[in-house]
């Protein structure tokens, strides 16, 4: 057993302090959401649920939340299907052309959000997609595709190329091989990709600001307008719900993994 050295103390306490910096600011929304005042601040006299009541009784907030959820699910499904097919195709090909295709598919990660949103805006105007759910779904699917293709491809790295080859030589068609052999192997990657795609869509703000006007409102847009227009503690309530939900899901997955 080595004595605890200064080196160790430096890194370990440092790491915990930095993790506190990373996580604690997320939690400040909790007390603020319980404030009894009508402005952002800590509770003055007593805790109040009024801002949660406000959220759950405000049709605009609920509508925006629902929009974000269903758009996110549609986006995740579309991106998961398209991205999985893409990654599997590229995995089989594994040549120079498919590598270029993979680079093309991840450009949305590298292009600044404002720039791509300008592009969307101009094109969507021509297509008549401005302020439509379809327009948002299409844009978000494009933004989510890189994540699906990366995670599916990562899952396939461990798949032995001889297995599909064997299936083929036993007479299975290309499609049968893909469905019966490759897709099951890619499953963890597809699932991760699906979750990523949902989150990308659920959190996306800059594109939505450009391509929607008033008919389509998502949760981030509502939060954005709330922050800009009137900082009222309802946002803190929404933020708290989202943070707690995240904590819960993280905890559940962590427990599952350990058990």
């Amino acid at each position, binding site marked *: 057993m080595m004595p605890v050295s200064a080196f160790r103390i430096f890194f370990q306490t440092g790491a915990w302090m930095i993790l506190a910096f990373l996580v604690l600011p997320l939690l400040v929304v909790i007390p603020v959401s319980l404030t009894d005042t009508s*402005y*952002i601040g800590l509770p003055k006299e007593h805790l109040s649920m009024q801002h949660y009541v406000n959220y759950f009784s405000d049709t*605009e907030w609920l509508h925006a939340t629902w929009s974000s959820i269903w758009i996110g699910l549609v986006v995740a499904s579309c991106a998961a299907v398209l991205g999985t097919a893409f990654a599997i195709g590229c995995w089989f090909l594994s040549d120079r052309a498919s590598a270029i295709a993979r680079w093309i598919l991840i450009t949305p990660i590298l292009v600044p959000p404002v720039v791509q949103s300008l592009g969307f805006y101009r094109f969507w*105007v*021509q297509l*008549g997609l*401005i302020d439509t759910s379809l327009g948002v779904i299409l844009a978000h699917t494009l933004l989510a595709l890189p994540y699906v293709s990366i995670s599916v491809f990562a899952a396939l790295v461990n798949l032995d190329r001889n297995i599909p080859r064997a299936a083929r030589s036993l007479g299975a068609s290309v499609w049968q091989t893909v469905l019966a052999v490759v897709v099951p192997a890619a499953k963890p990657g597809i699932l991760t990709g699906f979750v990523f795609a949902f989150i990308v869509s659920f959190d996306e703000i800059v594109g939505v*600001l*450009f391509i*929607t*006007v*008033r008919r389509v*409102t998502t949760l981030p847009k509502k939060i954005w*307008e709330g922050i*800009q*227009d*009137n*900082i009222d503690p309802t946002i803190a309530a929404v933020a708290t719900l989202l943070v707690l939900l995240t904590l819960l899901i993280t905890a559940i997955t962590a427990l599952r993994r350990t058990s």
Partner: protein
Amino acid sequence: MTDTTDFEAKRDIADIAVERYKQGRLTRRGFIAAMGALGILPALGSKVSAQANEIVVVNWGGTAKDVLEEVLAETYTAETGVPVVIDGSGPSAGKIRAMVESGAVVWDLCDSGAGSAIILEQQGITQPIDYSIVDKSKVLEGTAYNNGVGNYIYSYVLATNPKMLGGNVPQNWADVWNTKDFPGMRTFRKSVRGMLESATMAQGIAPEEVYSVLNTEDGIAAAIAKFRELRENIIVWGSGSDSQNLFLQEEVAIGNIWSTRAHLLKDQMDEGSFQVSFNGGVMAPGIWVVPKDNPAGTEEVMKFIAHAQKPELQVKWLELLGSGPINPAAAPMVPEELARWNPTSPENLATQILYNDEWYAKHQVAAEEMYVDALIN
């Protein structure tokens, strides 16, 4: 096509109403206007189909639409039997132009701005106002054009928080630039509109001289230099609600903001912690314009404009939205407690100047560039 109308100010008036009543939706700022001005129009304008004997009035939506409906439309219909339909889809100059050029005009009367009114007039898109029906004397001097007439007024004003300043409140723009006696943060708009004027007055230039000074390059440079000097004490507001928040959150104690936002803040802030001075304010008018070949015919629309000039109706506007009556005769009818918040009360008129659209048409683009540079460089 340059469009010097301040769309955001208009939309802001709509937004304010939203806050008032907590209903209706805000429009995404800038974008409808952008589409119109770019000439990229999705479906033309509104779904309102114009029938004979009805007037379609277009403004910028939100609950300003409801107020317009309640204050002007219903009273007009009650009086004349002519139905009035309000469309809140935002009559940008580009949209009006596209509509007239396409020959499918469905709008009768549009809430535009001075800049757009002048451009539309030059391009032959709008009709002359019939001043035998509309009374020229019932609008503020300088807001009666050939093809457009004043509708309401909002001002850029000096807003302060006396409580934060310990009662030591700036009285004029020169004081605002005096950070020694009046420390703390100020807020100015993220655009030169209504801002360069205050920086010019801060140099001791008389209000009536402001635009002639700003018409010289030196004049602009001097105003910009004033902002450069003050920038460490500046937080910028982008939208009207931004400016409101900065005061509510006590991020600033001094600012140049819209009188319509001040109208809201006076009710939201604690007693004695908000105050406005119209000293050195800049008044910007909303302007009615009538598209060529409007479906309801010229005469009917002129009658409606004349109806809207009634002072008692304009006072209602002030009460509900904070936009000031364009008709000087309305001032005496304003309830006493609101008088000092009225941009067009005689006392406030005496200390303000009128927003000069011609100047903006000529110099705004260059000035904006220098303004940004002064604030961030």
